[in-house]
């Protein structure tokens, strides 16, 4: 009888332990899930926004084409960037003469320039940030200084 009682007690303890563990797992999971969901919601637009970037590139290309860009086209670009801003997307601000910063810029080439060597000479494509994440680094050409005549 004593043995049976012991066995029973052990089994009960195991069951209790298992139950507590399951409960704890569930509670921990819920907590992690909450974090995951809020991260998901925050970045949920990411893939759509990434897919839209080439559209903005096309607008920028239009601007560079040398052809007179209708005011309307500029306004449309503004419309799109306005919407993106409201959703947490920002253009990365770079100008010629800025120091090169690989945390938000990508060097795609070098070019002669009055700008000091090693600094940004030309912006080739706009970069975008989504909340704290770099969606696409700004594509820039680095100055190699000026060669003397």
């Amino acid at each position: 009888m004593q043995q049976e009682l012991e066995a029973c007690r052990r089994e009960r303890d195991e069951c209790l332990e298992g139950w507590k563990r399951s409960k704890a797992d569930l509670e921990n999971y819920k907590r992690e899930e909450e974090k995951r969901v809020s991260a998901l919601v925050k970045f949920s637009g990411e893939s759509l926004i990434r897919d839209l970037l080439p559209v903005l590139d096309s607008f920028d290309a239009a601007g560079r084409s040398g052809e007179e860009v209708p005011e309307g086209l500029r306004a449309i670009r503004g419309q799109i960037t306005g919407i993106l801003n409201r959703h947490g997307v920002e253009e990365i601000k770079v100008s010629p003469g800025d120091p090169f910063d690989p945390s938000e810029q990508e060097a795609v080439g070098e070019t002669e320039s009055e700008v000091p060597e090693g600094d940004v000479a030309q912006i080739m494509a706009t970069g975008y940030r989504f909340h704290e994440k770099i969606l696409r680094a700004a594509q820039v050409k680095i100055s190699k200084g000026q060669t003397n005549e």
Partner: protein
Amino acid sequence: MGTTNSAMAAMKAGEPSILENDEGNRTTPSVVALNKSGERLVGQLAKRQAVVNPAGTIYAVKRLIGRKFSEAEVQEDKKSLSYEIKESDHGGVDIQMGEKWYKPEEISAMVLQKLKADAEARLGEKIDGAVITVPAYFDDSQRQATKQAGEIAGFSVKRILNEPTAAALAYGLNKKTDEKIVVYDFGGGTFDVSILEVGDNTVEVRATGGDPHLGGEDFDNKILNYLLEEYKKQEGVDLSKDKLAIQRLKEAAERAKHELSSAQETEVNLPYITSDENGPKHFTLKLTRAKLESLVEEFIDRSVKLVEKAVTDSAPQGAGLQLSDIDEIVLVGGQTRMPAIQEAVKKLFGKDPHKGINPDEVVSVGAAIQGEIIAAKEEGRKPEGEVKDILLLDVTPLTLSLETLGGVATPMIEKNTTIPTSKTQVFSTAADNQTSVEIHIGQGERSMMSDNKTLGKFILDGIPPSPRGVPQVEVTFDIDANGILNVSAKDKASGKSQSVRIEATTSLNKEEVEKLKKEAAEHASEDQKKKELIEARNQAESLAYTAEKSLKDAGDKVPADVRTNIEEKIKNVREVRDKDDTAAIQTAMNELSQEIQKIGQSMYNEKKEESAPEEKKEGEDASSETTPEDDSKSEHNDN
């Protein structure tokens, strides 16, 4: 630790999960650089300045680690590497970065150090142990060097794990007995095939093969060249020198490749790609999956031949087996998402390959699992994920539902819900002064209760007479660990309750379950239409009822012509309701809704005439459609 990119994973809540680095990315470029100011950059930052600092940017170190400088592969790679390498004192490779020379393991350690720091930040705790993966063909020297890289980075390297073995682990194939597995790894820069043998809780590598210079990048380049040629044909313009155009085309080529994994056709559309003396030029081209497949056919064929060779060549070059000896195939590497590759592999072996896990991450996932196994052993416990196996929980194989107004089967417990579990919902009555409700319990996946199996029925009466939709009847479905279902219904007002106990709801024949699920899938669209019709009818009746009530309540405040109009519309709705045209019912309802708004308007207008002029309010819909409860037993309001 990949040639181009590295990834890391850890067990979180019993599941292996990829850890993002501090830039928020799931992979980190295996690149290190020293910029002109003497600053060291690692990962994405190093990659971003590679173009302007080719001599100071170190990449593809995996091709050099643990090798002798004199080896043929090293000499070959030396020709294309942008940085300097030389022979070290011990015959190995020394890499020049800035003024100093480094061993490959020191460079790899820098990448690992960053991953360690990022992982510790993500997980919020210190990490000391790591499992690092290497190709199956790595020799002792390469493995040792990789281990050292880990140790330099501050890890206690618990295991150097073969990449194909990690992939097999990720799919749980290590639990199989006496099986032969092919791992087909088509990454960005290299193609590797490994033949594994699994048994007795061990995984053995029988043979390896592949091409270290064949990868997804070759596909991208082929597509890019095709686009450039097509454009030349179309417009007579050569874009190959236009850096910016190339960049856009490259990105478009990659996107197109991804899209064609799920679509048959895609369009490459790049406005303002360039301009000439005539003005701006644009690029549009349709690319079909068939065309893509023909462009990359040679690469896929080459990979298939290499697989065949690895399987059938006699040992030690190959595994000395027949293709039919292979039991399982695992796909690794982003490129394997391409349907043509999956088809080619399936055709070769006559079986479907395993591909459920993200192919870019499957090796890391496997490494995390191995890490957990080792950690568990060290700590004297069972690995997470296995403990769960001791207490096996059942699931309910088919959906359990309640019949609601119109014969609709309203799901209460969805199929594949883990049991024990309980679900409660509040329902109501369909008609005024309805004093009893019938609880009809069904099992199955069809939308109409008549197509499902009846498990039980009972009646709850004694509900105090009230207008329809007012009573609150709480219905609970409770399944215990043995699969016994208890359904109870309780009227909240009177406190009266009734219940029924149903045995063996989970002991269904597997084939039967599959058959029923298949039937449901086949009838899915017609079931859906039936359901929509019923719901429309329910809504129509509800609307008609509310309209009548509103008219009654408003009394003679409603002008005669408005009243007549509304009564006509109500009649119309009731007539259409009995027919089978869901759309017609919706139309009739909308017309009635519009008319009903005039009741409210009339009432406000009257008020206005009575009192001094006040602000004119927006006409409220005096007859709000829904009853307080979210779900009525009889009204299926879809809010």
